[in-house]
């Protein structure tokens, strides 16, 4: 069995950043391995050829492949080990990994593991969209791969379901490819995408954004022939006699991402129902000692820059664990709870052995104006943060400084909640 200090599952932006920071923080034996199932490192960034990446982390605007390349280069420079076209099929709580590729089965023992498998797209079936099942129905990511990596046109006239950033970006991409985007249909009364994307991807091309609309039926026997859409009320229920047929041969679904934690479950990692990812503490340690998680497998991010920062922390602690597991021996945690308008927080716990400044990331459960985010402990408000607008589509973050940490009462939970709602 091969042995490594740190093994990273997944060679996307999270895995790359985690590998680099693990490597930097290891002393002596610096064996780090990245296992990637695709042909190349870089993950889904490789098909995101639009700009907008790196504004926060590099202070410049990069495309997805450029952003990934900066990290891949460092991995190569540092001669960090990696396997591509290799699929991890099992992880045990003892941190033994079984991976498979064309050469055979590989058994690997890791001192610590970083889960960085990313997420998958929610599908037409998962959101239970009635109608026929013809060709011409894609997830946004599938369409992006066919167009940007493989060089194919996927249709002539399209309707896009979902106005998150990916849906918006694909509306522009299809238009540039000569595919007429008839509409972007959004069930909520607001878009969950960034304002700049609504302007640059829809408004600039005259693509209609139909808020409070639902796709109610897909038509066509062999290839999509059209869709029926309808208005919805405030309960998201279809309003009778508002149905409208739109002729198209392509439907793109961009209706949410789901962290892919099938392997995490095999390793016995406890998941958070709200994020769909592992429960972690501020070291990004999961419920299984020595197994860490970061990136979209942990919770779905809007910006890759945040993934990088989070993964660097996870990678650093994974390196620390591999050299000093005793520091994690008697982990004592206090819970960080999401309440009143906060859908989830990450991390969900604070590790008393590592009371060091960290970033608390969270999402709200609805659209709020002029609300106050408060962080309290033992009935005492530690942080109050006024926000003019909060939307579920945008991840929020608050830095928890050493000063705040020094005021904590460790026999009580930390509570994150919204006031004035």
């Amino acid at each position, binding site marked *: 069995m091969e042995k490594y200090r740190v093994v990273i599952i997944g060679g996307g932006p999270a895995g790359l950043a985690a590998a680099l920071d693990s490597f930097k923080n290891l002393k002596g034996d610096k064996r780090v391995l990245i296992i990637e*199932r695709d042909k190349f490192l870089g993950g889904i960034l490789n098909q995101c050829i639009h700009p907008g990446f790196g504004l926060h982390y590099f202070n410049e605007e990069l495309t997805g492949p450029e952003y990934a390349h900066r990290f891949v280069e460092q991995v190569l420079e540092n001669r960090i080990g990696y396997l591509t*076209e290799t*699929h991890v*099929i099992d992880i045990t709580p003892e941190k033994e990994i*079984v991976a*498979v*590729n*064309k*050469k*055979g*089965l590989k058994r690997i023992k890791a001192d610590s593991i970083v889960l960085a498998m990313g997420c*998958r*797209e929610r*599908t*037409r*079936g*998962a959101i*239970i969209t*009635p*109608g*026929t*099942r*013809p*060709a*011409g129905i894609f*997830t946004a*990511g*599938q369409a992006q*791969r*066919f*167009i940007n*990596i*493989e*060089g*194919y*046109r*996927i*249709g*002539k006239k399209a309707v896009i379901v979902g106005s998150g950033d990916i849906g918006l970006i694909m509306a522009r991409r299809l238009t540039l*490819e000569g595919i007429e985007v008839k509409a972007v249909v959004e069930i909520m009364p607001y878009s969950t995408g960034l304002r700049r994307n609504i302007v640059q991807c829809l408004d600039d091309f005259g693509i209609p954004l139909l808020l409070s609309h639902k796709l*109610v*039926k*897909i*038509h066509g*026997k*062999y*290839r999509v022939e059209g869709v029926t859409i309808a208005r919805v009320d405030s309960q998201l229920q*279809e309003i009778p006699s508002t149905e409208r047929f739109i002729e198209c*041969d392509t439907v793109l679904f961009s209706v949410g991402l789901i962290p892919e934690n*099938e392997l995490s*479950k095999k390793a016995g990692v406890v998941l958070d129902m709200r994020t769909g990812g592992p429960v972690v503490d501020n070291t990004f340690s999961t419920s299984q000692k020595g197994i860490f998680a970061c990136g979209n497998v942990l919770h779905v991010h809007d910006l890759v820059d945040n993934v990088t920062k989070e993964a660097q922390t996870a990678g650093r602690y994974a390196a620390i664990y591999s050299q000093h597991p005793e520091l994690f021996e008697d982990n004592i945690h206090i819970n960080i709870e999401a309440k009143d308008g906060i859908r989830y927080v990450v991390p969900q716990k604070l590790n008393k052995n590592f009371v060091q400044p960290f970033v608390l990331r969270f999402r709200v459960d609805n659209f709020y104006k002029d609300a106050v985010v408060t962080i309290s402990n033992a009935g005492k408000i530690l942080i109050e943060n006024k926000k003019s607008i909060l939307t579920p589509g945008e991840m929020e973050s608050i830095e928890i400084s050493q000063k705040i940490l020094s005021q904590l009462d460790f026999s009580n939970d930390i509570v994150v909640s919204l006031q004035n709602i």
Partner: protein
Amino acid sequence: MQAFYLPHYEKGDNKRMIYDAVVIGAGIVGMSILRELTRYDLKICCVEKMEDVAEGASKANSGIVHAGYDPIEGTKKARFNIEGNNMFSEICKQLDVEYKMIGSLVVAFDDHEINILEELLQRGKRNGVKGLEIKSQEWVFANEPNLSRNIKAALFAPYSGITNPYKLTIALFENAIQNGAEVIFGFEVCRIEKDDDFFIVCSADGRVVRTRILINCAGAYADEISKMVGAKNFKIYPRRGQYYILDKPEKLPVNRVIFQVPTEKGKGILVTPTVDGNVLVGPNSEYVDSKDDTSTTQGGLNEIFEKARKVLPSLSKRDVITIFSGIRATPDTHDFIIEEDENIENFINVAGIESPGLTSSVAIGRYVAELVSCKLNGKRNPNFNPYREDIKRFSELSDEEREKMIKLNPSFGNIVCRCELVSEYEIIEAIKRGARTVDGIKRRTRAGMGRCQGGFCLPRVMDILSRELKIDKTQITKFGKNSYILTEKRWEN
């Protein structure tokens, strides 16, 4: 078993297209008859309008092997159901198809429904169903702890089971081909003529096959084929059933097939594990105008969910991975039509095979093949081999076996479908066995059937189809005809 290539997969040449018997329709009934016919030394063929087998009701049904307490005694449904149930295990063993005799429960919520259970029990006994028993509420909760506490009693049928209906159709097809049968795809019958000895069966694209005996297994379209020949006048009414498929749970919510008491409209909504470890919920029952209206509707899906929740309160829409519907071929005669026509000699209708059609199909196949061989004085085929091996599946092997397979075939180590752990080898093998479409690959390998529904593997499956069939990806369809996935190549990679 060595991989085999289909002898006449592509458009056949006219000279050779004279047969002893031709089956119209490559659904489970047609394939069962075709395979049984290969026991005899006959030249036989099936014509199918789509590009693959099991493209109609055979791919979209509950996958239940019924015990046989439902059909009225004395009907063909009762006879073939019981015979089929008795044969099922053996045939699935021969053809290497999953079949699990998990048993079924019909659950009753009140005294009226308990009376219906009693009727079913008595009918089942008269039909010759073994092991039927009415179980108490306590037994139900001890054995199916997740079912509603409002259930008062249940009819237990130990010999009910589950199988994979399209995989069985595919297995019958492969075994029939191995034994010398032919299947011509893309052959949509538009006209049938008759001379002294032969039926002349013409396709929409101008191909012709001649045959001494013609067997109509055209499913929902069987009435139209019968009319073309001038045979028995009956009607098939398309009756649609919609379904949900749920993601593979860590622990199955039910261990058996759970039915509600039947009504005039059929056996009602069921909840069952599938042989692949998913959960299947459905079907409703609704007459539709078009024989190919396999769409799902909000109303139908809501109805199913509400009714299923009555039995299994923990059912959650969060677990849904896909929805689909199938068309039952409901005849106006209220029973299977399995007979040589009274007026047109050598024309055999096998029509109206709605539930329990899957269970009955294997027995119908044997019955019809015997009928044909009697008429033609067919000798036994000395080379008939009843065995067919399934594709070796990465997900089903031990690590040692996997390692051995990868040494022989490195592509066995290349995982293409991450959700179902399907290797490249399995996809290549499916193509060798006749898959030509994305759905064909899906049904043979499960690539694209998992929780991401092909989100990741579709482009990779298309890469392999394109490479193995030496066609551009713009030529690849989802399921034949105009179901193209990509419309134009923009640039070379």
